[in-house]
Structure formats: structure tokens, C-alpha cells
């Protein structure tokens, strides 16, 4: 702890970042003050602007500074495909790793009754509205393979079926480059359960 109140406040504030403890916060603060004031000022002004301007897309709920995000407005994206994910980080992962060219819906969570998160808390009525008014041909469910993710997936399946939309679920199984011996029991059981014909 320094005796400088503003310096302390800066160090404390930096700790809101994930993985930043008191020691690294102190190092960051000193680095900015002693070696990179310009970078610090730049960071400060971008932070203020981003925090103020970045909100949620009114269609897919991903992060965007516009009213509707770039993916949702792009005429090049396939409007017949809708991929449902738990969080914005999943959108980034899919965008970076796959050639998926449809649109998204971000749940911002998953059904978890013991945390008090039900269909209403998750805002699934917004998704229902979308399935009603702007129905895709296929809904791809990409929730995580956890218990809550599976429960969410089942709920989504039933929503889609009510609107006669084809539903697919991304596959889960043995990781590429992995070995069966080291794959955990449940993953292996799941991979076996969803085996497919090789042709």
C-alpha cells in the first residue's frame, strides 16, 4: 500500500480485471505511470467510450456499438441458419474456428433452476418471438455439454419443434488429437452414444 491515495485507487481499480491480483495490479499501475503514460491515456479514453457505447444487439444480444450487430445486418450471412449459444465468448470461438455463416442468438446464460434462472429470466420469450416472426430453417444448438447446458438444449428443442424448425445439436466427443484412454468416462460414453455411420 502506498501513501498516495490516487495511486492506491488506480491499483485497486485494476484489480477488477480477471486474473489480476494486488501484485500484478501494482506492476501495471507503475508501468503505465513510469513508462507508458500515452498508452495509459489511450486506454482510459477507449475504456470510457467502450463502456458507454457498447451495448447489446437488439436481435441477437451479442455485444455491439450499433443497435443491430454486424452479423445480424450483413446480407452475406445465411438467414436460414440460427445458432444459439450461451455467451458472446462462444460467438467469438465459433467465428474464429469454423466457417459457420449463419446468424446467432446469445442466451446470456443457461437454464439453472437452483440459481433462480428459468426460461423467463433467460429472456426466452425474445427467442420465441424471433422463431415466430423471422423463423430460420434450422436451429443449431451450441450450448455447453454441462447439465445446465443440456437442460437448456432440451428446452430450446421443444421451442423449435413447436415452430416446425429443424433442430441440430453440435456434436460432443473425444477431442481431436486426444486418446481414448485419457478421455473422461462421461465424454467417452457420450461419444459412443452419438456414434455415426461411416460411409
Amino acid at each position: 500500500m502506498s501513501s498516495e491515495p490516487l495511486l492506491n485507487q488506480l491499483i485497486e481499480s485494476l484489480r477488477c480485471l480477471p486474473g489480476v491480483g494486488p501484485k500484478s495490479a501494482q506492476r501495471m499501475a507503475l508501468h503505465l505511470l513510469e513508462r507508458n503514460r500515452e498508452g495509459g491515456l489511450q486506454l482510459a479514453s477507449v475504456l470510457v467510450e467502450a463502456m458507454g457505447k457498447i451495448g447489446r444487439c437488439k436481435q441477437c444480444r451479442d455485444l455491439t456499438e450499433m443497435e443491430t450487430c454486424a452479423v445480424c445486418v450483413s446480407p452475406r450471412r445465411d438467414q436460414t441458419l440460427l445458432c444459439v449459444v450461451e455467451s458472446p465468448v462462444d460467438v467469438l470461438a465459433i467465428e474464429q474456428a469454423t466457417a459457420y455463416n449463419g446468424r446467432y442468438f446469445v442466451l446470456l446464460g443457461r437454464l439453472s433452476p437452483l440459481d433462480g434462472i428459468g426460461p423467463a429470466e433467460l429472456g426466452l420469450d425474445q427467442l420465441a418471438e424471433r422463431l415466430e416472426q423471422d423463423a430460420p430453417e434450422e436451429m443449431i444448438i451450441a450450448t455447453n455439454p454441462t447439465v445446465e447446458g443440456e437442460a437448456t438444449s432440451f428446452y430450446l428443442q421443444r421451442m423449435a419443434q413447436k415452430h416446425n424448425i429443424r433442430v441440430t445439436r453440435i456434436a460432443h466427443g473425444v477431442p481431436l488429437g486426444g486418446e481414448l484412454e485419457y478421455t473422461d468416462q462421461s465424454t467417452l460414453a457420450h461419444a459412443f452414444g452419438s456414434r455415426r455411420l461411416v460411409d
Partner: protein
Amino acid sequence: MSRMQLEPAYVLHSRSFRETSLIVEAFTREHGRVAVVARGAKSPRSRWKNVLQPFRPLVISWSQKSDLGTLAAADQVASPPVLQGQALYCGLYMNELLMRLLHRGDPHAEVFERYRQALSELAAEAPPQPLLRVFEKHLLDATGYAMLLDREYGSGAEIQPRSWYEYQPDRGPVLSVGPGEGRVSGAALLALHAENMQAEYLPELRRLMRAVIGYHLGSKPLASLALFSG
């Protein structure tokens, strides 16, 4: 401080604790519901990440100084029941019931065995309603809310299959003039008592159990029920 070793357990629920840890609510056979901190369990490389999931048959070791214990080991001992769709909702519902009705540290070995049994029946795609009703009945029994099912409250007269009753949640069945709102048939009460429920009794028994459990849980409703209504 006490140490518990290799005790059969299921995870009921877990929530974040500090940056990388979880507080796990587990249902153990010998010590009932316990809360333990699983240090580092949230980090992607944690060996516990795949283990500390609901419905998996585990053995866990932990130490306990206060209300909150510290997890020392957790291992999966058998392949988990595969719960899909409706069966998964039922499993989550049972977990919520256990969280709400069991007090921490009260042992309930019989409920534990019934829970294990119910999970395996759900995985085998048994019709969920009868097994949930039996589970609820025994859980209420074990937690001090035993239901009177074969005799009238007050008079102690035997329940008649052809009569109708008003079920008072904290007391029991009281003879009423006929069917109607909140009434249950004697035949349904006896079927639940005998744990042998024909399909025709299931709707009224579900209403009965929702009312009785709702009464004991107070104003906060069971969140998992919202899943079934979708």
C-alpha cells in the same frame, strides 16, 4: 476439525467462489447435505472440472471446521446415469427439492439410496411421475413432514377408495362431500400409500404433492417447475 474420507456423494449444485474456486453443495450418504469449497475447480485445467457435475456417482473426502468444508478429493466411481430431456428436468427437480428440504449436516442415508435408485430409473426411461411421487413422499417423511395417507386426520377413520378428501398440508386428509378444487380421491391416497400408482391417479397426486411441498417450502416456489411448463 473433522476429516471425512471417501464418502459416497452427489453434487447437487455448485456456484462460483472467488476467482477460480467453487462452492459445491453435495449430498453425501453419511453426512447428508454439505457445502465444501473446491479450490481451483473453475480453472480449465482442474482435474475436478469434469467430475464435479450433478448426477455423477462420486466418492469425496473433505475436512470440516465450520459450516463450509474444504474438498480434498473427488472421484467418479461409476459411469453416470444418462439423463435426457424430461428425465434431466426430473433430476434437476429432485436436486432442488434436496437443496430446499435437507438441512446441512443432517444424515439421510435412506433418502440417499432412494435418490440413487430414482436416478437410475430415470436413466432407464421409467415413467417419471410415479417415481417422483414416491421420492417426494419419502423425502417428506425423512425431513419431519410425513404425510398421513391411509387414515383421516382427526377421526383416524380408514381412507375409503370411493370417498373424496380435502388434504390439509400440515395435517392430513379430511373427508369432504365430493370431488372439487383441491380435493383428492381416497383411491389416489391409498395408491400413493401403497406406492403403486395407476396412471389415472397421477394428475391428482401431482397436484396434491405440489400443494403439500409448496406449503412446507413457503413463499419461494420451486424454480425447476418452470422447465416442465415449456
